[in-house]
């Protein structure tokens, strides 16, 4: 057997066949009729319209065979399409190309074949009209002519099929276009040469109004335009070029409900149903205008706020350069308006902590905001001015975050001169008052002390008792003045520590010495269990730590019952988190204890465990508040644990620089 050859342009031939869109379609009478006719005329058992696909032949019409397709490699038609005219095999068994063909030696036992190629409209032989018989036959010229006619008729049917398909495609495309044109938000109308509307999409009908009484289609286009004359409209239309949209023109049009609407319109020349028309498409600008006006109003309001703010407001880029600075920012820095733009804000202002060194750019508040995205506020900073002076400022820097990343910062600063002046006046006032209070207190305490001390002789018991009360309250007043001064220094940030190395044992001894009188007077025992770290040195402000311990011991004495024992003791702990050693000094009493809900409040100013404490005649209510501040300034902690009815333990922890054993040597 010899397989049919496949020509070089077979891919194009197969594409032409596929273009007919007929493969694998249902049987059709117009083709079946031709094969039936052929079977009758030629008295053959089998007649086919066979289309030769890439690897198969498929039968559009088929008489005498059950199969709808067979392989191309064993097909007779594969040979037939290789030549322009009829291909005849009179006896397959005598033809070496087909003698052992499965279709010859098996079903349907073909002996005779005659096939006329079918040519597609674009000239490719896509199949055959063929006749098959199970006996050898001769095929004469008349028969050949008839077969050519049948094939020609089949080709005509194929062409008609193709045209039908093309028409369906075109209708589908038009429907799609219609859906698109009707559903776009833009207003689309077609206008004929005489200026009348011949087509309007649904957006146009909605805008201009369309009813059975007054249909939009048919109206003169100039009738819906409010700000152009009919002559202008004709001019505009005539300028439109075929295929190209004109420049955009803003037009005021009349809507169906009587409003005037701004439209952004373009014109293009086109053909509609064979008639030249102009396509006008327009976009309703009403909402866009409204949105733009709103944005403008918001923008004006924001500008007004920025211009009117008494505070300096500066926007920095990622590198700290000024993108925007409001008028107050320039005014506060004594700069001409606009002079900050593009400059490194930190360099211009030499941002400085008040009474402190200039902040370097790296690590400065603004730098941290730009690097870390932190919002930072400082109440007492200082900015340099253009004329060399400086201005105290309160300053906030906040990050600008876009899409999760810091893209800049907003720095807001206010002139804090008034605030600084107020604080200075307050300091002076407190200092003056404290001096003015101490001087009369000196006389008072001195006079009472001399009387009470028996310098002028023994006094009656009642008088002595009165004097004792007077002396105690004078001492209390003195402490109150001292405490208020301390707190004022804390608040002003001016309480400074005089850090030196002090022996723990000496600090405790000094503290005990200053309260021993109180313990004696109250009949409370004091047990000093500090050690075995008594040789330990602590770096601290000795006066301040003695002040703290004296306060704690004094409280313990005051609130302990007579004959009970107050213990002062110490131990070393290591904070694993910070890797630091701390010495913990504890003052433990057997007093009445502190209710849990008041444990933290006792460290607040003017707080005492209960109101009767004031009648003990000795506390100021400030001692613990100051003690906690002092300990925290040493990077330590002052804490309390207490059990009502059992007693309290106040613990002062202070960091030890270096190992305790090293500290001893």
């Amino acid at each position, binding site marked *: 057997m010899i397989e049919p050859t496949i020509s070089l342009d077979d891919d194009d031939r197969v594409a032409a066949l596929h273009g007919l869109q007929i493969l694998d379609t249902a049987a059709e009478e117009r083709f079946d009729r031709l094969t039936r006719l052929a079977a009758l005329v030629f008295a053959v058992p089998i007649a086919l319209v066979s289309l030769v696909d890439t690897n198969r032949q498929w039968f559009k019409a088929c008489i005498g065979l059950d199969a709808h397709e067979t392989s191309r490699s064993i097909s007779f038609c594969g040979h037939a399409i290789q030549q322009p005219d009829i291909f005849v095999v009179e006896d397959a068994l005598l033809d070496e190309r087909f003698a052992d063909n499965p279709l010859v030696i098996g079903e349907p036992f073909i002996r005779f074949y005659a096939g006329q190629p079918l040519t597609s409209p674009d000239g490719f032989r896509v199949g055959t009209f063929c006749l098959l018989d199970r006996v050898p036959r001769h095929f004469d010229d008349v028969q050949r002519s008839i077969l050519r006619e049948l094939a020609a008729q089949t080709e005509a049917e194929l062409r008609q099929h193709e045209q039908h398909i093309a028409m369906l495609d075109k209708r589908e495309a038009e429907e799609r276009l219609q859906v698109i044109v009707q559903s776009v938000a833009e207003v689309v109308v077609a206008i004929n040469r005489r200026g009348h509307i011949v087509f309007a999409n649904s957006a146009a009908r909605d805008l201009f109004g369309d009813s059975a009484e007054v249909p939009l289609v048919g109206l003169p286009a100039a009738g819906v335009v409010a700000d152009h004359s009919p002559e202008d409209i004709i001019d505009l239309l005539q300028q439109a070029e075929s295929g190209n949209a004109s420049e955009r023109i803003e037009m005021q049009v009349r809507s169906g409900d009587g409003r005037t609407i701004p439209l952004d319109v373009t014109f293009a020349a086109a053909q509609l149903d064979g008639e030249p028309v102009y396509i006008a498409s327009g976009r309703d600008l009403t909402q866009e205008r409204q949105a733009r006006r709103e944005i403008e109003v918001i923008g004006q309001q924001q500008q007004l706020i920025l211009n009117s703010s008494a505070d300096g407001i500066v926007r920095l880029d990622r590198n700290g350069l000024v993108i925007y600075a409001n008028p107050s920012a320039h005014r506060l820095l004594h700069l001409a308006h606009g002079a900050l733009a593009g400059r490194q804000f930190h360099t211009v202002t030499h941002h400085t902590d008040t009474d402190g060194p200039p902040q370097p750019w790296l690590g400065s508040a603004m730098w941290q905001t730009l690097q870390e995205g932190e919002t930072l506020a400082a109440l007492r900073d200082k900015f340099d001015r253009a004329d060399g002076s400086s201005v105290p400022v309160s300053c906030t820097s906040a990050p600008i975050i876009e899409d999760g990343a810091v893209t800049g910062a907003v720095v807001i600063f206010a002139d804090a001169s008034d605030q600084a002046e107020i604080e200075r006046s307050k300091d002076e006032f407190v200092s003056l008052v*404290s*001096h003015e209070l*101490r*001087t*009369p*207190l*000196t*006389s*008072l*305490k*001195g*006079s009472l*002390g*001399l009387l009470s*001390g028996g*310098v002028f002789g023994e006094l009656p018991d009642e008088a002595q008792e009165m004097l004792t009360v007077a002396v105690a309250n*004078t001492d209390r007043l*003195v402490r109150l003045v*001292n405490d208020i*001064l301390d707190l004022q220094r804390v608040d002003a940030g001016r309480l*400074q520590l*005089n850090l030196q190395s002090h022996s723990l044992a000496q600090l405790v001894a000094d503290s005990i010495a200053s309260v021993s009188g109180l313990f004696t007077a109250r009949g409370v025992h004091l047990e000093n269990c500090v050690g075995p770290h008594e040789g330990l040195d602590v770096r601290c402000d000795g*006066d301040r730590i003695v002040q703290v311990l004296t306060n704690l011991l004094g409280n313990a004495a005051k609130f302990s019952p007579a004959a009970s024992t107050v213990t002062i003791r110490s131990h070393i702990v290591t904070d694993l988190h910070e890797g630091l050693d701390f010495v913990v000094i504890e003052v433990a009493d057997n007093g009445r204890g502190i209710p849990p809900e008041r444990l933290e409040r006792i460290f607040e100013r003017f707080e005492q465990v209960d109101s009767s404490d004031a009648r003990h005649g000795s506390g100021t209510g400030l001692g613990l508040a100051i003690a906690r501040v002092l300990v925290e300034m040493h990077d330590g902690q002052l804490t309390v644990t207490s059990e009502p009815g059992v007693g309290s333990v106040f613990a002062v922890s202070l960091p030890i620089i270096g190992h305790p054993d090293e500290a001893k040597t």
Partner: protein
Amino acid sequence: MTRRLLLVDDDDGVRLVARVSLERVGGWIVTAVSSGADALAEAAASPPDAILLDVMMPGLDGPSTLAELQRNDQLAHIPVIFLTAKARSAQHDSLLRLGAIGVLVKPFDPMQLANQVAALLGFGP
């Protein structure tokens, strides 16, 4: 030997209390004046063994008075102790740097004042 002390303070009450305290408790002979100028005049007229000098006074204040005393060769050797209403030790340090031998704080304990003065002068209790 009874020692003589010049007490300088502009406040009448403080002057009285301190004088009585030093005389009665400490056995000093006290001359009390109310200004820096008076102190310079009194010291020049009758040099004391020690001077207890208030810091804040109108006119010539304590530090200025001390400076004047130090400028006078006849008086420069007299030990001066400041008496101050300022309670902070940092301020005390700066007063000591001016050349005072000690700083005592107001309000003082009248029964201890004389002892404190004696201790600063190295006399022992």
